[in-house]
């Protein structure tokens, strides 16, 4: 049986990769994908701890995280489409002005 530590380390690596994506990439869609990667990394840790404790609550939380991620993607992509229509760009460096 693979130790829980191994899964948590893998989860941390994936989470850091996602964070780097959020901070380094300038394309709004790629930033969104990196956020999804971070959520997934958290899910891996949750499921690993659920197995560790022999309880299913961790898995139920993962279920909720997936649902919330789906809602977030729906709203976020709609926002990106709306922004692209008005600004003709999804580069987040060009979107830092809080104006219509």
């Amino acid at each position, binding site marked *: 049986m693979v130790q829980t530590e191994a899964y948590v380390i893998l989860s941390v690596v994936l989470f850091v990769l996602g964070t780097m994506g959020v901070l380094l990439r300038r394309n709004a869609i790629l930033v969104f994908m990196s956020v999804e990667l971070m959520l997934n990394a958290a899910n891996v840790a949750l499921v690993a701890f659920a197995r560790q404790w022999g309880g299913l609550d961790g898995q139920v939380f993962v279920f909720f995280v997936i649902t919330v991620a789906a809602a977030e993607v729906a709203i976020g992509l709609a926002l990106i489409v709306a922004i692209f*229509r008005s600004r003709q760009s999804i580069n987040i460096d060009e979107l830092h002005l809080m104006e219509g």
Partner: protein
Amino acid sequence: MSIEVILFVIVGAVAVAAAVMMLLSENAVHSALFLILNFVCVAFLFLLLEAPFLALVQIVVYAGAIMVLFLFVIMLLGAERVMQTVQEFTWQSPAVLVLALIFLIAVSLSVLQGEVDTQEAPVLAPVLRVAHAFPVDGFDTVDIYLNNELFVADLSFREATDYQTLPEGSYNVSYNSAGDDIANIIPLATVSVEPGQVNTLVFYGTAPGQLAVIEDDLSTIPGREARLTVFNAYTALPAISLVDPGSDLTISNAETVPVIVENLEPGAATTPELLPAERKTWAFVRADDFNQLLLPLRDFRLDRGQSHLIVLAGETDEFATAGLRPVLVSLSARTTPQFGGPASVGQLLFIEYVLPLQLVALLLLAAMVGAIVLTQSAAARPKPGRETRRKVSRPLTSVIAAQTGRDVMEESPRLPEPDKPDEEKQSEPAGN
């Protein structure tokens, strides 16, 4: 190295590689495809972590629905080419790399130092249920006491309680007729329960009553099978058997009839046995004479994933053998569903997490409405600089003129003036 470790290393490496490639690829479509690969790897890790239901949800929702949405938006916007613009903050990349490395080392150290694996899974508390198969007159309904405290009240004949958790230890079981004073309780036996045990107490026999402790097995049943235990509480005969005579319930040849349980003495139980889950037509017969049918079991359902306990009990009947008529007490209990399977996750979700589930459903609904509103308002907003008035390519007058064959311009004084839009709006319905 076990095969699980090898699988973990390979799948984990592919997951990390896919994440890195997602960060580095120039094309947004390639990034999305690498992210799908990463999600599939994570789903595989869920399978290794005994979460098959979540693995399927991960594939369907993440790799399916969400990533299709991403790809759709990328292609819709034509944003697959990632524009290499001038970085406004040149110090950002090295700073991010250093911070990420520090974070990685800090968390890894704390995970490795923190002795994550020392926690043991908790042992379950013992559970107990009581079945009433005691046929003596005056005790149709009984109260059962454990250590002189009421455990169950008004337990009627052929009924059983649900499983109830209680602390481990030794219990003096006693009973009296339902509603009777506690001073009149009749002691039965002493039962000791240990953690993790699942026991059924069957109260049977002749006055003053006997108590049998049947250890039940509620562990997970793989496949389409059911678990069966048979207990003999029919004291009028020295032994009974359970046979499978076929649907017509006639035993033509006692030598060849299939025997399920053979020679079960009163007070004895079989060991739990796995049988295919289907409808059975069985019969209880005398152990020494298979042609003497005691009690037929017509269309007895062995349900998938259930643990059944069949008790052959006696009911007072002065015309029957030794004053007892055989009756059936059938108990069943749901076995533990497979860890991480849809049944177990669903049970937890709909029993303990109903309110969060409703809230999340509301959130999804709000997100759906929000997405529609966002795209709607973006699409409906008029482009700046364009005329808001609808342009009619052919004036109505020329259509009428073409149909009637003569010019109607002079005969329609209420025709709208092009430079008075307010009047036009009012006159439009009248003109039509």
